[in-house]
């Protein structure tokens, strides 16, 4: 009798734990359903072709235009500025930590670099707007107060730890005997790093880069604070721009009634953002899976 009561209890607990694990799938479903449902309402009113090819984005004006390209160009511009900082710096730092740095230094510096990820992004935004922009204006006098370059650089430094720590893990996974083979041939550490370790850890490093891209695309507050809120179809880093994320922030700050076309625009922008990051996440996932198979 006692035995069967215990069995039932075990079943109930297992079911409860299972439901908790499955709930994470429902979060994804929830995201997809909500974004699809509200965007569907948006695309009933605005033709998809206008949305994808229009170069003017003024949904809050009296004469609304719904071309997403200015927001996409703003997102890509800031992302590329951030990546041109984060990728070289992150990769060089990863090579240094994995191949050159003494053990003690590596163990001390890694937790400290993790703190960079702990700083709230709104504080980074403050820093970009009120510290870096005035500094850059000294160098480039015609830089406007809101611009793409300053939040781009800050965002780049922000994602360096992500890029470097994932790349470093990939390089650490390269077996020692491969390096030893290279040293035995008389190669320097630098030659070994670039000709042997990096090619061997390639998919891991690529996954780190992809992760950095996806993070830069989705970053919100630095851009919302320091890039200005101007949908601007340009690739000039000196001008103010708006990204997909900062547009959503702008609309959410105002008082937009539920169910209107303006309300639905943030879901259309969110859908675009979600698909962009999903694309990169899938590539990154696939690359990481390949590393695990390599050795």
């Amino acid at each position, binding site marked *: 009798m006692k035995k069967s009561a215990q069995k039932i209890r075990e079943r109930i607990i297992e079911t409860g734990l299972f439901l908790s694990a499955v709930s*994470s799938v429902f979060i994804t479903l929830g995201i997809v359903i909500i974004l699809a449902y509200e965007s569907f309402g948006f695309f009933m009113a605005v033709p998809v072709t206008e949305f994808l090819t229009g170069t003017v984005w003024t949904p809050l004006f009296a004469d609304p235009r719904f071309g997403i390209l200015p927001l996409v160009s703003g997102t890509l511009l800031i992302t590329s500025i951030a990546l041109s900082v984060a990728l070289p710096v992150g990769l060089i730092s990863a090579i240094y930590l994995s191949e050159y740095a003494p053990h003690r230094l590596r163990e001390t510096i890694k937790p400290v670099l993790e703190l960079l990820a702990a700083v709230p*992004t709104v504080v980074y935004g*403050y820093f970009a707007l009120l510290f870096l922009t005035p500094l850059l204006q000294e160098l480039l006098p015609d830089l406007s107060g809101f611009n793409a370059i300053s939040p781009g650089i*800050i965002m780049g430094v922000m994602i360096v730890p992500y890029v470097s720590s994932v790349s470093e893990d990939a390089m650490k996974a390269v077996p020692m005997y491969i390096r030893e083979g290279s040293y035995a041939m008389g190669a320097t550490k630098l030659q070994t790093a670039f000709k042997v370790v990096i090619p061997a850890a390639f998919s891991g490093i690529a996954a780190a880069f992809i992760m950095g891209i996806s993070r830069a695309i989705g970053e919100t507050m630095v851009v919302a*604070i320091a890039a200005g809120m101007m949908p601007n179809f340009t690739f000039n880093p000196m001008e103010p721009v708006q990204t997909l994320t900062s547009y959503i922030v702008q609309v959410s700050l105002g008082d937009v009634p539920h169910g209107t076309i303006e309300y639905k625009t943030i879901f259309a922008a969110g859908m675009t953002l979600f698909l962009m990051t999903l694309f990169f996440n899938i590539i990154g*996932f696939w690359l990481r899976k390949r590393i695990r198979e390599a050795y």
Partner: protein
Amino acid sequence: MKDIKKRIAFNKFKDYSFRVLGLLSTFVGLALLFALIADLFMEGAPRISYKFFASFPSRFPEEAGILSAWVGTLLIMLVTAFAAIPLGVAAGIYLEEYAKKNWLTDIIEINIANLAGVPSIIYGLLALGMFVYFFKFGESVLTGGLALALLILPMVIMATREAIRAIPNSIREASYALGATKWQTVWWHIIPYSTGGILTGIIIGLSRAIGETAPIITVGALTFIAFLPTPPVSSDFPFISFKWLFDPFTVMPIQIFNWVSRPQQEFHVNAAAAGIVLLCMTLLMNAAAIYIRYRFRKKIKW
């Protein structure tokens, strides 16, 4: 011969230069962190006083404070912790101890990895569509807390799994050998031994949530709130009230955002001061996490 020596010297020089470059690149992040902290303190430190913590926001920068912001942050964190911890730990236990290797488990795992890469503002849109308008929770503490709970759920699950994975199989086998059921093993052995790792993950997750701004803006937190939510304890029957869950709110990062976005310099000082407070909160939580990880690692020897 001379040619070779020259080449070796050149290669050694390149090697050395790269070492310097690598050290510099590693310290770029650190330099930014120091510049940021120094800048915040120089701007904001004089503004921090008892009055700053005890005043509501105001049109006059010298009188404005962060009372409603820090109370809001505290309440939101309470909701987030209550929602994310049980769900995340349970999911982590299931995936490590119970899950069979099949397509459903694969889907759950891929899904969690993907959720960790979804931008935080998307969680805000989810919460806006689901909690605000579908479940009709309104733009309330409950909605904000749940939005952040969903955001840190993947982090809590992954931390739980990592902590459980570190427990050697001999512990489980010893427990089964004494006739314990699966759940008894989990409850009396797996959970206690992985507490340190799980706790560390939870604290780091919450410290991420405390600084998150975007999803909270999306669910419609107000930027100007000059009142506190209903107190949870009252002198009248039934003494405990949950009305605060449905009150409008603001949080620290939103208050900072609001002050930064104003043109007047005086408000920027307030933003820096509030930034110091928020930064201290997150850094303290991270320090606590590192300490717990250290303590538990020392205590347990397999």
